[in-house]
């Protein structure tokens, strides 16, 4: 069977398809919402980390009268204990962020594991894991926290665990859906056909595809975790020995800041929580959007192509 064949040509550069590598970083650079979100978070985290060095006053030291008005020395006034609000916010941030990140970490680990296992193995494993997820989904969060605080006492550790246990479910579902779809891709099936074991396939082929979504989901979960912690602290279920932003609000509330007209004791901490959550939402949302497999097929819009004047082929001589 003689078949004449020639060498395949050298690689011709095709249009570079936007690869999914570094899509998180790309998104941050390119989309304004992501840049702003990332910027906000960066500022907040830096302030929180450096609080011991850059906070103007000690957060336990009374430097003026109760609910002192904002002044040049104290731009946000003083709280119910005469403590400088700015310093309080910086220190409060630390706890809020720590709880937020820690709880999110717990939730990611549980949710990610459950999601990957359910999506990858399918069948009975999937059914069992999803039923468990459904049960956790149904648990009302605040009553659970009240009970945990009542039984085991309110400590930072308990708060982190409780929030983590409640938040993993949505992560699990999102990851499971993505893993299910990645698992059906031809190169994953091919890896299995080549003889790769489950762990290899998951680590090398599935997880890298799922990672950007996991990141987006993590960022969004941080927002929820911080909100939950703030709510808990506000309800008095937080760790009484630690100052978090929620605790700051709660203190002010308890000590009648509103009737005294000391808006600076309530609004700034609340606004700060809102800003952090906004930053997370912007960043997480932008990454999620960027990951959406938007169909690149040209939409057949029947009304808007442009007409150009007919140009000749150019002065090519025959």
């Amino acid at each position, binding site marked *: 069977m*003689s*078949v*004449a*064949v*020639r*060498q*395949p*040509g*050298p690689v*011709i*550069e*095709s*249009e570079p398809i936007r690869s999914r590598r570094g899509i998180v970083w790309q998104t941050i650079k390119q989309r304004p919402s992501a840049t702003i979100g990332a910027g906000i978070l960066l500022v907040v985290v830096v302030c929180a980390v450096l609080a011991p060095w850059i906070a103007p006053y000690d957060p336990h030291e009374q430097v003026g009268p109760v609910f002192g008005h904002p002044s040049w020395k104290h731009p946000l006034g003083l709280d119910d204990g005469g403590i400088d609000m700015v310093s309080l916010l910086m220190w409060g941030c630390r706890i809020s962020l720590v709880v937020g990140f820690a709880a999110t970490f717990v939730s990611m680990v549980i949710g990610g594991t459950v999601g990957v296992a359910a999506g990858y193995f399918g069948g009975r494993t999937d059914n069992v894991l999803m039923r468990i997820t459904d049960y956790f989904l149904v648990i009302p969060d605040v009553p659970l926290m009240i009970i945990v605080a009542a039984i085991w006492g309110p400590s930072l550790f308990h708060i982190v665990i409780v929030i983590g246990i409640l938040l993993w479910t949505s992560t699990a579902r999102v990851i499971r859906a993505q893993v299910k779809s990645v698992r059906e891709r031809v190169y994953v099936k091919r890896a299995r056909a080549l003889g790769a074991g489950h762990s290899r396939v998951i680590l090398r082929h599935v997880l890298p595809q799922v990672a950007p979504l996991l990141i987006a989901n993590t960022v969004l979960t941080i927002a929820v975790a911080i909100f939950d912690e703030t709510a808990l602290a506000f309800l008095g279920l937080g760790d009484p020995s630690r100052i978090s932003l929620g605790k700051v609000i709660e203190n002010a509330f308890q000590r009648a800041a509103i009737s005294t007209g000391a808006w600076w004791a309530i609004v700034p901490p609340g606004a700060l929580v809102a800003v952090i959550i906004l930053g997370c939402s912007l960043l997480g949302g932008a990454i999620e959007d960027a990951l959406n497999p938007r169909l690149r097929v*040209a*939409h*057949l*819009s*029947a*009304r*808007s*192509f*442009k*007409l*150009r*004047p*007919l*140009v000749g*082929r150019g002065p*090519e*001589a*025959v």
Partner: protein
Amino acid sequence: MSPLLELDELHVWFDLGEGRELHAVQGVSLQLEPGQRLGLVGESGCGKTTTVLASLGLLPQTASVAGRVLLNGEDILAGGEDSIRPHRWTDLAIVFQGAMNALNPVQTVESQIVEALELHGRASGRMARLRVGELLEAVGIPRDRGTRFPHEFSGGMRQRAAIAMALSCDPSVLVADEPTTALDVMVQAQILELLDTLCRDFGLALLLVTHDLPVVAQLCDRAAVMYAGEIVEQGSVDALFHDPRHPYTRLLFAATPDLHGNGALVSIPGSPPRLDRSVEGCPFQPRCDRAFDRCTVQRPLLRELDGEREAACHLNDVPAVTA
């Protein structure tokens, strides 16, 4: 006899952003007489689908078009959407690529065709349903199956339904874009036979867009071969196979296996040129087995040759070289 449909120096550019453009169709001209079957042949990316979409005014916002599309002598592209719309579907109908998968899954097949009729003011209500029944029978779908949903149909039946929809408003030109590509060979034969019968019975002109040369050889009288956005050769299918005047045509046929063929099967090395950059000389030259010095510097124009043919190749100009 003036042609029914004529494309005159059609160009299409797609805006790629950042000041770059993709010159997808580069001066395509062809004529389709009433009742004629013309095949538009080429591999992926050559611009054949874009060409027919342009002639129906179905390009996206990023596209700009130059040239003329003449329907019975009238330039329907000149007035933009307003001059095309009255002719779309009623004079020029298209069966899209993958049309069988584009049927609305939540509407019965019958109601979708009725919708087409009502939208173009051809019939409505009972008259429309009667007409749809006729159309379905003409394409080989039993009338009573019309009240079923697309997912209850097989691939071949869905394609027939798409053809029925295209014929609903009595067009004079039917454009079929890869009508049988996703179908099994037996179903493909059924659909090709159907197209053959319909074109004969309804006096339709057919513009068949495909990468499948044997399909064109079987169904069409004439064919135009496209490469890198332009037509490189045009003529009767018989002449294209037995006496090709462009190396790409010859190599394309040679690369197509035939059931009982004996010749060596070839593969064409390399890939088509990028259309977002201008090309120096002949666009096929890097892959051509007969290129000579002129081919790298001068772009060959599509020239008429004897016997109602055209080809864009310098080899046709140099008598000594054409062997």
